[in-house]
């Protein structure tokens, strides 16, 4: 069998899509996270429901939205609600554990805590970012989160400049001590690899490396050490996965 040609973004999208289970309620933002959610729904998780923090539930997404408030998320939904509803569905003790959230951030630490607020001193930042939006709410409430990151030393850091969204906080008991619900981060997808969090220590470890990328290169681009002993090569996207991605999810190539 010949290997289909694919781009890095396509590989990342499919790697994230494979983490979504059939029947998940998928919270996503814009960009690559939304395309991953659409890919999962069209490939392996037909019974998943995509929803947005703005309150749109099960949007058809005939065109790729450029914001979570885009009119494209409002067309052909099952319900058009509001922010109060959307976040309540994630905090809700019955529905919340079934939600998988797809996130992104400027910095991540080994426990999957995220910074999307500021680099440097919060009170006199070197670089200011957008801030939480719904990210802190999602990370606080839902059963599982998947995070997209660029694999760079300055993004995988020992200590975050600001904790915007809680991961496992400071270890296995972190969330419990803080009083948070039981969920937490399960996976991180970058432009080089996929990572998970150890059952016992809740520390990040390498689960998969992208074809052609060595463990050493992955470690060289991180500000902290992770266990690489359990990693396998990530299966490249299949011809069918690519076809769905290109023809159904983002035919105008606005994201990919």
């Amino acid at each position: 069998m010949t290997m289909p040609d694919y781009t890095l973004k396509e590989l990342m999208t499919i790697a994230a899509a494979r983490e979504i289970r059939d029947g998940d309620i998928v919270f996503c933002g814009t960009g690559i996270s939304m395309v991953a959610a659409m890919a999962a729904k069209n490939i392996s998780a037909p019974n998943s429901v995509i929803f947005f923090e703005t309150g749109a539930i099960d949007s058809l997404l005939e065109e790729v939205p450029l914001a979570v408030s885009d009119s494209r998320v409002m067309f052909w939904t099952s319900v058009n609600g509001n922010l109060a509803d959307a976040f309540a569905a994630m905090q809700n003790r019955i529905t919340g554990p079934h939600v998988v959230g797809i996130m992104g951030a400027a910095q991540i630490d080994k426990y999957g805590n995220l910074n999307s607020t500021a680099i440097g001193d919060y009170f006199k930042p070197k670089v200011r970012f957008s801030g939480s939006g719904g990210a802190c709410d999602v990370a606080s409430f839902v059963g599982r989160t998947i995070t997209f990151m660029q694999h760079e030393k300055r993004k995988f850091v020992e200590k975050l400049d600001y904790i915007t969204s809680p991961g496992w906080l400071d270890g296995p008991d972190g969330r419990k001590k803080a009083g948070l619900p039981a969920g937490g981060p399960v996976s991180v997808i970058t432009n080089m690899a996929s990572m998970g969090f150890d059952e016992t220590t809740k520390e990040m470890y390498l689960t998969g490396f992208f074809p052609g990328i060595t463990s050493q290169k992955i470690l060289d681009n991180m500000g902290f050490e992770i266990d690489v002993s359990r990693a396998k090569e990530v299966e490249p996207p299949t011809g069918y996965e690519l076809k769905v991605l290109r023809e159904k999810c983002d035919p105008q190539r606005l994201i990919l």
Partner: protein
Amino acid sequence: MNISKNKEAGLKEAVKKYVSPGCHISIGGFTASRNPMAAVYEIIRQRIDNLHLYAHSNGQGVDELIGAGCISRLEIAYAGNGRFAPTCIRFKKAVHKGSIEVEDYSNYQMTLRFLAGAMGVPFLPTRSSLGTDIVSKWGFSSKMRKLDTRIPDQKLMVIDNPFGSWGDAPKLVLVPAINCDVTIIHAQKADREGTVRMEGLTFSDIEQVKSAKHVIVTCEELVEPDFLKANPDQNQIPSFCVNAVVHVPYGAYPTACYRYYDYDPNYLNEYRRFAEDDGLYKIYIEDFIYGLKDHEALLNKMGKDRLEKIRADLRTGYAVGLDRR
């Protein structure tokens, strides 16, 4: 609130009457959708400054108010504008320069704060942000909070669940109510009495309206009260919440208004180019805001062809196939 039966007003007079320097304000919409842009531009044109702005993810309108120097304090969850600006540019510059004071919350927390204001309670609880810097780092200092009677002494509070194990939530974050002087929203339809019908997602507009002392509604269509009463289950805001109703077609432009028009990608991309350079931004404000008499003048400046391109398709509510690169 206001119980008069005719609240129809002009935008200039409504802004003049209800928005004054130093007042506490919130605007409706979310990132690039249904921001009350005509009103935002009018506030800028009237050079009203020193405003205290409350926002969840109100996007374009927030950035333009900051860029024009109208805002001195900002309580916000997300200062971005989707793919058009991952971080709002004038916001970022203002924070770097230290020209605005910022307090960070999450979107749910800001929504709950408006809801608390709407409900008439001093705070509401949530489990969001436990263990994070949203709890531990306060943008507004304790001292500043104590000196200003218009803001609560605490950014938020973490408490043990007073009901013990009930609800399986050992700790809670209490976020303080917002009751601002004025909320401005843009809706698809309203009548002269003040009843409002939004179409598509309502974001947190309803909570924002009900928590404010005064409310200005700008609308695409000013319709007869009987038109709204024929389908009351589609209306969200009762007339008595509203002080002024202003008919402003394209009042959300350049942001989107579901079923009427899309966002204008050209405008938003150009805006980004202007916003990145202080010199160009001065020219932008001069040419697109100060130098224009009103919103209609901006629409005329854009021209019919441009507005035609973003006209919403009847089936989907947005401009199908619009070039958005």
